[in-house]
């Protein structure tokens, strides 16, 4: 008996396309975790995509007259990239309906926004786009702060992290906003967390999103050497630790259910993730802050306890 054909072709590492569609030589920092993820995402989405960009680090990918993309790009503003995705999607649909362009001229519309936009001022436009079931992919590269302006804290900054606007010994006093849950509450077609250091998990999810209609979130934790203060050759290591400590759960939402795609059975202590980043150095030096470290560990334990894995 023939097996049912699945749209998803990526099962193993060797199934992942490696075309390097995104050109090198951009203005991104060495070791940029967002760029690491974007390289992989773009290879799967392919060149017939139009990236709609919100103000952030990635705005500097396309600086006149250069672009690393083989496809198209539109810069918008910090707050309204999803609205531009709406305009482009609608216009392409109208043009196809009215037979003014051929279906083969169609493009995939992709928002490319940072956490400053996605967790904050762009949320109204995103919420409305999901509610309208807009057929688009929303990539949020989450470097947990306003990275392009020198890492001030944003709604995505984790508890206790030191940023250029939370420099005290206890760092950022609030907690990271759960944007994934906010998206899931909208019942979108799909939402997934990814990380550049897990290419197979990333590829499967992006491929899934590509083949679906409706609003799809790809939320990429993006280790940031300059903002988080670590050496640019440690991006992959930090990404892996984020998953292994349970700080960055890899999961997806589809059909009303949230499923974890990687469950760290024996979670490493959060300390291992924290102590190699400058933004958490104050938790260990000059004195160890057991209370804050425990608070962070508790949050992670509570999360995984809640999901009962």
């Amino acid at each position, binding site marked *: 008996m023939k097996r049912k054909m699945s749209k998803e072709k990526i099962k193993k590492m060797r199934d992942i396309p490696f075309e390097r569609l995104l050109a090198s030589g951009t203005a991104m920092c060495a070791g940029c975790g967002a760029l690491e993820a974007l390289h992989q995402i773009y290879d799967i989405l392919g060149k017939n995509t139009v990236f709609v960009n919100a103000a952030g680090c990635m705005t500097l990918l396309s600086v006149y007259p250069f672009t690393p993309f083989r496809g198209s790009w539109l810069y918008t503003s910090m707050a309204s990239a999803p*609205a531009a995705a709406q305009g482009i999607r609608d216009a392409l649909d109208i043009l196809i309906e009215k037979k003014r362009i051929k279906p083969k001229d169609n493009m995939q519309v992709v928002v490319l926004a940072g956490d400053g936009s996605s967790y904050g001022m762009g949320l109204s436009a995103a919420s409305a786009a999901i509610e309208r079931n807009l057929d688009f992919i929303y990539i949020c590269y989450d470097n947990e702060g306003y990275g392009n302006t020198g890492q001030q804290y944003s709604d995505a900054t984790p508890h206790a992290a030191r940023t250029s606007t939370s420099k005290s010994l206890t760092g950022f006093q609030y907690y990271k906003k759960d944007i994934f849950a906010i998206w899931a509450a909208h019942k979108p077609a799909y939402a997934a967390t990814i990380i550049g250091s897990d290419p197979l998990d990333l590829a499967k999810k992006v491929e899934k999103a590509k083949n679906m209609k409706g609003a799809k979130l790809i939320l990429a934790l993006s280790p940031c050497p300059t903002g988080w203060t670590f050496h640019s050759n440690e991006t992959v290591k930090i990404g892996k630790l984020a998953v292994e400590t349970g700080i960055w759960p890899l999961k997806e939402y589809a059909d009303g259910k949230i499923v974890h795609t990687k469950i760290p059975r024996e979670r490493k202590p959060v300390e291992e993730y924290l102590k190699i980043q400058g933004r958490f150095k104050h938790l260990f030096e000059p004195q160890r802050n057991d209370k804050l470290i425990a608070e962070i560990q508790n949050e992670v334990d509570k999360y995984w306890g809640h999901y009962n894995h």
Partner: protein
Amino acid sequence: MKRKLLTGNAAAAWGARLANVDYVPAFPITPQTEIIETLAGWFDEGALKGRFVTLDSEHSMVTAAASAAVTGVRVFSATSSQGLLYASEMLYAVSGYRVPWVLVNVSRGLSSPVTLEADHNDIFALRDSGFLQLHASTCQEALDMVLMAYQIAEDVRVRLPVIVNIDGFYLSFTREPVEIPDENKAREFIGEFDAHNISFRANVPLSHASAVLQGSIYSYFRYEHHLAAIQAISVFNESAEKFEKMFNRSYALIESYMADGADYVFIMIGSFATKAKEAVDMLREAGSLTGLLRLRMFRPFPEEEMKKLLKGKKAAAVIDQNLAPGKGGVIYTETAAALCNEKEAPFLISYIGGLGGRDITAEEFYEIEKEMRKAAETKKPPMARLLFSEAELEAVRKLQGIAGVEKKNEQRKN
């Protein structure tokens, strides 16, 4: 062609319908909402083919509008007042996209205090946004200016978005007889939408609105934008000529009413100019050589035309329905700038009136005419005037009494 009683809002919507727009992103706001309701209905019943979508804000609405225009469809939208200002970041941004589309603004005074009635502080706050501006003073013009706006915006020499302004209440909710052009003739006038070299298509990569990191290239694009805007003067005239041939209505950059041969002129914009026309008629009857100049185009500012029309006049009164606190009237300032090197320029007097829908009475026009004459005789124009009557002040005092202003002042003193 048919003649119908239409509100200014309905007339503006008819303009969009006759332009055969593909896409209307929208957001409701008083007193504009009737425009988008009308268009939504036409999309629903199939009179318009394409898509109507309500966004989460005017900021999003303008983003969607311009992005759709970049993708290659004909776009229309409408807003008002706070909505226009909420969208203002994007209005500045998307005029630089250099794609044509038309936005109707239904003028309404800005907060604070919040109000619903008309003045022009909203539209003039966007005077430097890079959008072209056409101002209607009748419901007929609301329709006709939308049609002409598409032709001007889409002209290859211009390629800029246009705002057509109509006054809230005075036009938006006032029914006037409007001639609705024949659909086929309107389409012939505007032509098919041509995206030229800007569109998003598979296998045709385009990076649009990319960042620039250097003053020279930034300046270059901004200068190009400015020069294209200036082109809209002659493009407007060409379009008006074509419009007159097809529809038998004639539109100049600046409407001149009894101003030819006049010694004194009122300079105005928008629907209140129709009040001035009535005053001019009365003044003419009384033997005064007074006329009216009404700006139909505000961006680009028709400077040469204004100089020509004001040449040899003894005095001109600019009646601004807007107020730049700490400076005065916007049209006054711009007119004065246009005249500053002219030898035969008239004395220019600044009046502020009609804020938040406040009426400008016939008596006030007569009074202004007197002051113009006096300025010409004494060669000394008066200071800028804020129009307000004693009766109004009395009425305000009564309201303040109810609000307990005196009592509160007393309490504070104690």
